[in-house]
Structures are given as structure tokens and as C-alpha cells.
């Protein structure tokens, strides 16, 4: 996965995305026991998109130029199907802004904070999100004050 993350870092350096962070099941896996997933969810902020219609076309074109092809809703980057998710509401925008800087092997990357992962799961509220909430509460070291404030700010409750 390290090569995948290097490609994501290159996209950010080149300004194709303004910022990215790992979310979804792989982000949850950073904090809890390994969770089965078949894609890498990557939240992104696209450049110059404040109030504008979002399009992933420039991102997909940049990846195609490097030989990475779309496979249904993902792009296979160095053997990992990556699903790009533009920040779609205030909670996700905040989660991206506050994402943790971590080092994977020797490559820097970002992972959403556990508290934001929990809040996003509460907001999305599918069966697997409720399971993610349970796992995060059981196994992740959550900052309870930070989480409480975050939930109130976004109108959520445990």
C-alpha cells in the first residue's frame, strides 16, 4: 500500500487534489482490529471547488496519464482499488482538515481521526456503520471531550 500512498502524495503536491486523507474501513483499521474491506476510501478536497459543481474528471485524467485505470467506482493505484470521495458536507470537510499525519512504512499520509470516523459512521448509519461505531468505542482511544463537542457541533448523538 505504500506505493499507493506515494501516488496520492504526488497528486496532492501537483495540486490535482488540495488535500486527502484515508477514511472508511482502512482508517478504522488504523485504530481497531483489522476489518475486511476491498477498497481504500480516500476523502479529498478538490482545488477551487468552494460552492462549485464537483467533478472528478481532472483527477481521473491525471491518474490515467500515469497508467492507472478506473475499475467501476474505483481507480486501481499500485494494486489497491481507491475510491475517491470528495468532501460532501461540513463534517467531512472538518474531518479532512483535522486528519492525523501518520507515517506508513516510510511514507507520510493522513488518516481521519477516530472521533471523526465515528461521527461519520453515525451520520451514514448503515448496519456496517453501526458496527464501526461499536468497534471504535470498544477498541480505539477516543478523546471523549473532543468527540462530545464534535457530535454536538454536527447535530449527532451516540
Amino acid at each position, binding site marked *: 500500500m505504500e506505493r499507493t500512498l506515494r501516488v496520492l502524495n504526488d497528486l496532492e503536491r501537483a495540486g490535482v487534489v488540495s488535500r486527502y486523507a484515508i477514511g472508511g474501513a482502512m482508517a478504522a*483499521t488504523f485504530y481497531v482490529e483489522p476489518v*475486511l474491506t476491498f477498497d481504500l476510501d480516500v476523502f479529498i478536497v478538490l482545488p477551487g471547488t468552494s460552492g462549485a459543481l464537483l467533478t472528478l474528471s481532472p483527477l481521473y485524467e491525471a491518474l490515467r496519464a500515469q497508467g492507472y485505470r478506473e475499475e467501476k467506482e474505483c481507480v486501481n493505484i499500485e*494494486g489497491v482499488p481507491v475510491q475517491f470521495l470528495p468532501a460532501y458536507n461540513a463534517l467531512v470537510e472538518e474531518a479532512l482538515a483535522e486528519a492525523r499525519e501518520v507515517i506508513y512504512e516510510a511514507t507520510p499520509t493522513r488518516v481521519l481521526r477516530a472521533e471523526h470516523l465515528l461521527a461519520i459512521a453515525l451520520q451514514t448509519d448503515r448496519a456496517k456503520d453501526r458496527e464501526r461505531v461499536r468497534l471504535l468505542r470498544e477498541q480505539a482511544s477516543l478523546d471523549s471531550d473532543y468527540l462530545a463537542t464534535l457530535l454536538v457541533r454536527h447535530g449527532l448523538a451516540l
Partner: protein
Amino acid sequence: MARLLTAKEDRRRMLAGLPFPDKVRAVVRLQRMVAPVLRARGREVRVWNIEESA
């Protein structure tokens, strides 16, 4: 039974404490185990083809 459940919980906490790259490798192993079952059910899944260091 209580001892078994405690041991199970202890193992899950141990897994939660692994370094992130080790967890990613564990996810790929899970993918390999589950993929045949999902494909038999008609679901298209792709096991990650990533470098595996020790």
C-alpha cells in the same frame, strides 16, 4: 466459557495494537480467505496486489 471469551477479547485488543502496515497485510489475508466465497455468490471482488514485506 468466560475464560474463552476473555481470551478472545484479549486477542482482538492485541490485533488492534498492531502497527498499521501489519494490519493492512492482515486485511489482505482476510481478502484472500473471503474472496472465493464472495465470488461463488456472484460478487466481484479484487484482492489487493500490494508489495508484502516481512
